[in-house]
């Protein structure tokens, strides 16, 4: 079927799982803050994309805050982004998810927050919101009212009545249908869009962009995923969905990247690989979990330390990697040429090196002894 721009009756930007206010305790305080800030910064790019694509509405499908009562910083960050927009005919729908459910003490019920939201922003704060969109289109939105529940939120969306030819769009938040034990996480029937007579079902919860079920494109049910990745194991995160629906009520979905941070797990097994890593230029906006799994000579060990120092940064130098998590447990010092290395050292230091080598053969002391040897050679060399 030929599609032209004229066919399009509804353009939507569908995003979800911002998780504003999420903490990243594994990376420590500073890096954690950086990543928390990244979730704030991505909002600008999401709304810029909406503006650039001239969408009719923006659907934000839940888990926009990481908790129902986020810190003031994150509330004001969202308000700041939204109040700068000055939109008139482009509504933004904010849907409470299971992380930020519409409970009494939730931010969504906070009068000051609500009052500060611009007019074009609508919080889905009733069991079922039905609202008309341009060109005889209609949106049905069902929020999460609690942190957990066994109810399928789409069950509240009325079935398509005979003769109803409107474009019907659903907006809900819930867990994947194929998940086994997450029964209390608002399970959504995988055929909900078909059953309810929806032309597009916008959902949120999973952090990677995907069609549900993967092989069905019409009518599409989409997880846009989180716009800024939150964990290493998330596939295809960092996107929003642009949705175009034509007169025949057929929806076409485009994935648009908005995230800046890439999460990468890398295992380095040779000096060459480590040197290549050191030369990479794409590390600034990267969360890198680096595992060193190599055996190096003492001079190489020194080089490893130097490279790691550059990657990690110090009080005086910038870190090359945005956020670095280092696993160096399997970094080994090659001790086969110890005698050659210690030649020329004073006898006491030679004896100390030998003693440390013996200690390194004890698995319990290996790491410390190797490191002591490294220090010994570094100090001796530096002097």
């Amino acid at each position, binding site marked *: 079927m030929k599609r032209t721009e004229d066919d399009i009756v509804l353009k939507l930007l569908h995003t979800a799982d911002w998780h504003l206010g999420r903490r990243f305790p594994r990376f420590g305080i500073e890096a954690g803050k950086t990543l928390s800030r990244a979730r704030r910064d991505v909002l600008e790019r999401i709304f810029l994309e909406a503006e650039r694509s001239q969408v009719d509405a923006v659907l934000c499908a839940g888990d926009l805050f990481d908790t129902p009562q986020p810190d003031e910083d994150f509330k004001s960050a969202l308000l700041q982004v939204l109040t700068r927009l000055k939109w008139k005919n482009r509504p933004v729908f904010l849907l409470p998810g*299971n992380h930020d459910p519409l409970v009494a003490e939730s931010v969504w019920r906070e009068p000051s927050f609500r009052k500060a939201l611009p007019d074009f922003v609508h919080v889905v704060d009733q069991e079922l919101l039905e609202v008309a969109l341009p060109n005889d289109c209609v949106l049905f939105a069902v929020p999460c009212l609690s942190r957990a529940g066994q109810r399928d939120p789409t069950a509240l969306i009325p079935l398509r009545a005979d003769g109803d030819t409107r474009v019907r769009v659903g907006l809900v938040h819930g867990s994947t249908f194929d998940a086994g034990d997450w029964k*209390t996480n608002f399970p959504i029937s995988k055929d909900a869009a078909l059953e309810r007579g929806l032309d597009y079902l916008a959902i949120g919860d999973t952090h990677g962009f995907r069609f549900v079920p993967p092989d069905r494109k019409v009518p599409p049910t989409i997880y846009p995923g989180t716009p800024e990745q939150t964990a290493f194991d998330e596939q295809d995160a960092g996107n929003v969905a642009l949705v175009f629906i034509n007169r025949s009520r057929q929806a076409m979905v485009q994935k648009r990247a908005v995230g800046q941070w890439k999460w990468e797990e890398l295992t380095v097994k040779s000096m060459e690989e480590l040197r290549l890593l050191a030369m990479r230029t794409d590390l600034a906006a990267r969360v890198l979990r680096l595992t060193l799994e190599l055996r190096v000579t003492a001079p190489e060990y020194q080089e490893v330390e130097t490279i790691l120092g550059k990657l990690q940064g110090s009080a005086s130098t910038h870190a090359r990697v945005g956020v670095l998590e280092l696993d160096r447990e399997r970094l080994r010092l090659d001790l086969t040429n110890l005698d050659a290395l210690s030649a020329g050292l*004073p006898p*006491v230091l030679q004896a100390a090196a030998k003693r440390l080598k013996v200690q390194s053969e004890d698995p319990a*002391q290996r790491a*410390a002894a190797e*490191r*002591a040897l490294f220090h010994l050679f570094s100090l001796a060399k530096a002097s």
Partner: protein
Amino acid sequence: MRFSKLQIENFMAIVSAELELGPGLNVLYGPNDLGKSTLGVALRAALLLPTTSATASEYVPWQQPVSPVVTLTFLTDEAKHWRVVKRFTENDATLSFSKDGKEFSVDSHERAVDEKLRKLLGWGITSPGGRGGPRGMPESFIANALLAAQTDVEGILRDGLVKDPDTGGKLKLTEALSALAQDPLVRHVLDAAQKEHEQHFTVTGRRKSGLNAPLTQASEAVKKLTDELVSLQHTLSQSVALEEDAKRLHDLWLDAQQKVEVAEQSLKRAQAGLKRSSEKQVAEQKLAAEQQALAQVDVLAARVQVLEADIAANALEVKTQEAALQSAQQAAKAAALAVREAEEVHRKASSADGEAERAVARATLKEELAKHSVSRAELTSRLEKAKAAARVADELKKLNDTRKKLNEQLGPARTQLAEATEEAAMAGALMNYGQWRTASEVAQSAEKWRSEAKTVRADALSKSTTALKVQQNAKTLEDEIAARRETLPDDKARGALAKLRRDIDLAEAALGGGVTVVVKPRSPLLLRSTADENSVEEKKVAKELSIEADRRVQLSIGDLVDIEVVTGAAEKRKDAEHLRKKWKTDALPAFERAGVRTLSELDEVFTELSEQLERVKTLRATALQSEREAETLRDRAKMLDEKAAGTPSTEQLDEKRAAIGYPLEALEKLFAGLGSQWESQARPLNELKSAALTQASKLAASLEGDLKLTDARLADLSEKAPGTVEDVTQLTQSLETLERSLEKGAERLKQLEQEGTGAKKQTEARLEQAQQQLAQLETAVNVASDALNAARATQSARQGERDGTAAQLKAAHREAVAARVEAAKKQLATFADVEVLTAEQFTARERSVELTRVTAEQARHDFANAEGALSKVGGPQAREQVRQLEEAVLVAKAREQLIEVDAAAWRLLVEAVREAEKEDSSSLGSALAVPVTQRFAELTKGRYPSVKFDAALQLSGIEGTQSEKDELLNVLSVGTRDHLATLVRLAIALQLQSTIVLDDHLVHSDVTRLAWFREALANTAAKTQVVVLTCRPLDYVSEAALPIAGAMKDAEGTRVIDLAKVIKRR
């Protein structure tokens, strides 16, 4: 270490001695045998020998057996004074400590004194009494080196450190010497490693736990994350428990709903059953009525039968009577004919004799014939009677058989009836018992409900009270807030104040920042200056004064002039001034009212108030919640009470119990056998027994009715049965004989008529006879006629009765009645499945339905609560957070591990280098070699440049070939070896910074060496205390230095003590 004071009493030959020592060189001189060496012994004993040692007895003065006492005061540091007092041969030793050398406090006693001393000295002497501990005066290399008696000079060199029982001395010496021994690179490595090591570890080797220690921070991070994780895991486990709970409660709810459904259906059935059961009763009554009607009809039919039989029998009687009458009439007729003939004969006879005779003969024959006729009539009648009698007998026999059969049936029927009656009574009693038991149980439950209701009410009351209290708290707080709010400006005023503040700030900012006024007076003047509002100072300005301010500088020069320098444009200043004034008038009074000093304080007050308002809200919500809970509880209590109220009273129960009417024990057993489903079994049983009873009684009644009828009939027939019964056969034969004789008579008569004779007399007689016979026969006719009439009357009465009964029977329409009975039976059969319920049972069932409903409602409520709780906890998020934190903990632990490894690495490095040093034999030897070799070279004027000592400080370590060594050893004179030993000792003392006691060590010296040694001693004494015991003081000091007046003189940095003046000998 150095000595400051030595006191001796009764020690060997010395009665008493007291001397104070200087910090540098101390030359203690006196003639031989004064007891110089005794001082050295006393010093060693004070420091090293336990008072109870066997050796101590050597110190007891031989002239006087008293305990020798030595008191030694020494310093281990400038502020650490120690005083040891030992009374030898007794267990009496005291060690005291002082910071200033004046105020001493006891540190230890007796045995502990030596232990402490050895620890303080660290000379490689094991603790007293320990394994390998020396018996006499303990020896160690350092002790010998520092305090040696000069008797065995070479011993110092010979023994070295090797023989020291304790490694402490070696270690101390090693450490002290290590600085000298180290290669610069080793020192660099060790210093750097030590520095890093100290980041992690304290001096004593323990891990640092201060806030800034690297590991502390990492561990804190791990701990914080772990704590958080534990708390979250707790939440998660709660969540999991909640999930399980919710699932369980959901199942319970479903189950309860199902039960309600079942109970409601059962109730519905019971309602239908209640209606149907009344219909069934009607049907049963109808059936009974119809059956009764049928029985009545059957009684009628039987009666008709009996009557029919009766009538048939009577008909025979009538016929017999009729036949008899006919016979009689015929006989009478014949007799009348005979009379007429006799009259004729007589008339003839009267007329003619022959004729008369014949007539007589004929008359006689006719008479005979008439007689036969009569006989025949009689016989016929008798035959008929006999036949009838035979029939009656037959009937009677049949009736008797019937009766017998009936009687046979009636016996078992009566037994059956009695049994059925008994069983029905028991079944009824069982029902009653069951109902009574159920009612009792319900009544017991009611007690429980009542008590539960009471508990629940109490809970509700407590909740209400809590709610009220919280409400009151909320109110109090609210009142407080309101009162506080009174004192505060309203939002508008507050906004205005904020704006004003901003305006002021802006206005002041607009005035621009900073002005510097430089005053350069031509001549000095007194200047008072004010910078902005704050600083006012008056000072004399001679040359130049620079005053700096943000906005305003005021200068006053005496009474001469006031100068004011103000920044900013005049207009802006005015604005600022105006605003500041406005601030004073507007803001300050408001602040005063509010009891604050600044706008930010006011803001804080507002924040605090809004927080309190939140708290009020929370309190209100809590109160409402509590009240709601109380309401729920009260409802529950009410429901329980209502439930309890519906149960039967004790009186009712007693009545029920009384109504059972059967031994309870038997019923109880039976009841127990039935179990909980007793009613479903007892009820049909009861019905079965009742039906059996009805049937048995009906059967018995019917049999008895039949028996009665039979009896009546028997009585009737017996009455009718003739007394004697003639033999029918015989009668028939007689009758046949008679008939034949009648035929013969008729033939004879014909003959006679043919003969025709008669006589008048005969005829008259015959006539008379005939007339008599006629009269007899007429009487017989009358009798027969009467009998016939009677029989007919009886017959018609019977027929009348029969007709009446038959008419009744016909009118009763037996077929119809039987059909009705069948119909009624069929209808009754349609009620076979109907459960018959009493009103009480029905009510009980209603109550049970209500109970299941309440249970279901409670289950729904519980499930809703659980789901609510779960929805708050949020299982999935908790799981996710736990996962994140688990990862974080792992990462933090890895970080901690890295730091630990690094700390361990530095520790290992320090240890390894130290150990290597310790083991490095050259270290110690070369350490001593430097000072010793240098001084040895000076001493021997460079003759033995290669002399060195090995690690054990043994002289045998001299470098060179064996011949060189031998040569050296040979060459070294006794004096030289002494000097060499002294040099070693001095070197050790210098390195240890410890006192050295030299006892006449220079006896073998020449003048050159003496001079050299004096210098060496002076150099050593500049750094550590040296005590020289000598009889030749001038080897060490000039004559001028010797004390003249007193016992002691300090000169040239040396203390000289004349021992002769301080030692009192015996």
